[in-house]
């Protein structure tokens, strides 16, 4: 099967800012693909170039085997997009909103109603979009992007600003969309989201892709230490320093964190000393990979 998206060395500069600085990727058909990075990493601009909203300064893009720029009307019905801000008509209800988009694609109103149902929005179908909660508006926005059954779905930070419950609901929906055989491309600044949802992740910073691969592979490649934390009253900083000379120690807000490559030894030693109050063990995550490849803390 041909790739859904191919970009070769695309660049986009705004004055001196290199928003996208040489991005080359290949996204397979049916893949769940994520762009991970802090704000300003170049994720949105990369997505907009893939969608055909922006023309890259240089480089090649193909979407479903066709160039997305200039605006290609044959391509538009095959892709569905959702932007960071929900883009709705004013003062329309959820149902009127999605039916308007359905009509733009010449899709029957029934299909739109079914989608509302599937996205758990049937109860608020008669509510104006201005009065929807953040999670409901986000779901409606994605439902509007799917109303014409696109082959490729591009979502820009779909869970930004949602509460944890709404995020989990949305994750389930996104998995389902992908399970229907659609290619899903999303950007996120949540590490856990990329780790949980995506088949492959590209870590972006400063307009460049630093690493690409399945989250598990990226984490394994990087021999990351484990963090063991306990309350400081369980064991003092000096004591811990003597016990674990190879580990890095850090004390913050009454919590002592021992970063080590040998977590079992550390935990059993702490257990022997009955110093397990407030114990938390955190394995390596994408955050550590990010720290390793950029040389700085991840800040979303």
């Amino acid at each position, binding site marked *: 099967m041909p790739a859904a998206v191919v970009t070769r060395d695309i660049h986009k500069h705004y004055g001196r800012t290199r928003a996208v600085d040489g991005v080359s990727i290949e996204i397979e058909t049916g893949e769940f693909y994520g762009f991970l990075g802090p704000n300003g990493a170049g994720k949105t601009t990369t997505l907009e170039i893939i969608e055909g909203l922006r023309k890259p300064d240089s480089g090649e893009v193909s979407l479903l085997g066709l160039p997305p720029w200039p605006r290609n009307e044959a391509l538009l019905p095959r892709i569905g997009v959702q*932007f*960071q801000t929900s*883009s709705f*008509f004013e003062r329309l209800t959820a149902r009127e909103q999605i039916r*308007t988009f359905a009509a*733009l694609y010449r899709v029957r109103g029934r299909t739109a109603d079914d989608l509302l149902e599937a996205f758990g929005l049937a109860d608020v179908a008669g509510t*104006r979009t201005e009065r929807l909660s953040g999670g409901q508006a986000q779901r409606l926005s994605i439902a509007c992007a799917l109303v014409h059954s696109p082959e490729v779905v591009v979502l820009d930070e779909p869970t930004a600003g949602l509460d944890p419950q709404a995020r989990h609901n949305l994750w389930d929906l996104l998995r389902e969309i992908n399970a229907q055989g659609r290619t899903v491309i999303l950007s996120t600044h949540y590490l856990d989201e990329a780790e949980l949802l995506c088949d492959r992740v590209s870590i972006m910073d400063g307009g460049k892709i630093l690493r690409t691969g399945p989250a598990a592979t990226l984490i394994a490649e990087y021999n990351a230490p484990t963090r063991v934390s306990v309350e400081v009253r369980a064991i003092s900083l000096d004591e811990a320093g003597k016990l674990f000379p190879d580990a890095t120690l850090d004390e913050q807000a009454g919590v002592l964190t021992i970063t080590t490559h040998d977590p079992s030894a550390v935990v059993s030693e702490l257990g022997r000393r009955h110093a397990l109050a407030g114990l938390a063990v955190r394995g390596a995550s994408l955050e550590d990979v990010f720290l390793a490849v950029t040389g700085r803390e991840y800040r979303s």
Partner: protein
Amino acid sequence: MTGLGPIFRAILLGFSRDRSALFFTILFPLVFLILVGGLFRTDGIPRSKVIQVGPVAVLDALPADAQREVAGVLTITKADDLTGALASVRNGDVAAVIEQRGDEVLVHYSRADPTSSGTVRGIMDSLVQSANVAASGRPARYSVRGSPVQDESLKQIQYLTPGILDWAIAVGATFSGASTLVIWRERRLLRRLTMAPIKVPGLVGARVLVSIGVALAQTALFLVVAMAFFGLRLTNSWWTSVPLIVAGTLSFLSIGLLAGAKAKSIDTAIGMANVVVIPMAFLSGSFFPLSLAPAWVERIAHALPLFHLNSGMTDALARGSPPMAVLPELAVLLGFTAVTTLLAIRLFRWDDA
């Protein structure tokens, strides 16, 4: 024009639920018309009030039809107390006090209001002169016959209705042109729509059609109210107001488009639209005839689309000019639209980035 139907529906539905837009485009101008229409219900200059003290032969002996004619310009009340009546003149409550001493008719008036006291003195003068002529027993040699130049049924309302209506259309179209663009850009709806298989003429056409529809609805409502309550009489060429309204709406939309093309926020866009609409309303003679304004105001007015719409609409609704008479105004409005739209397109930005 792909996309025209669904987008037209969406905008119209949104407009019909926008209470403040409905208020400012439909209800507020209508209230304005009712207030002003009620104010000018009595035609022309308000009648002067006078007090008659004691018998005054030239007034009392008038035949019934002449009395009616005098009543059209003077409201006469009778009183016996001269001192009290003179106090009323001093206060400015009445224009004059009239009494008769022997063969002399005395008009007490205040210099503070030369217009109405002049009117009263003029009337009394002519009444006395006609009485003198009648007393001489010879027929009058000269006579005056009034002949109104305009339509005989012409009233203030014929001028006011087009003025206020045009202003209402200008406000509605300018603001919707400015705000639609900015709101859609702010909300990224414009970008979202470019991702759907629609065509730009469909998108723009939908906005234009809604505005034209709203303007025609405003017109119908205005004419019905003015006809039902204020005695507006439509001339035979009233239908020429339809192409005028369409061209006028286009020109105001283009002003809004120009404001919205550059404005960064909705507040800026509304502000810019206000800067244009408010002075334009006064400079274009929507609320008072431009003949009262200095010459330089008239020169500015000729550059404003509202002036040309007003002038065309007065032709169509009040003067009953032949349909061809509005063609120059139509041409000016469409030309204005073309220039402003081109300028707006040059300044247009798809997004804030």
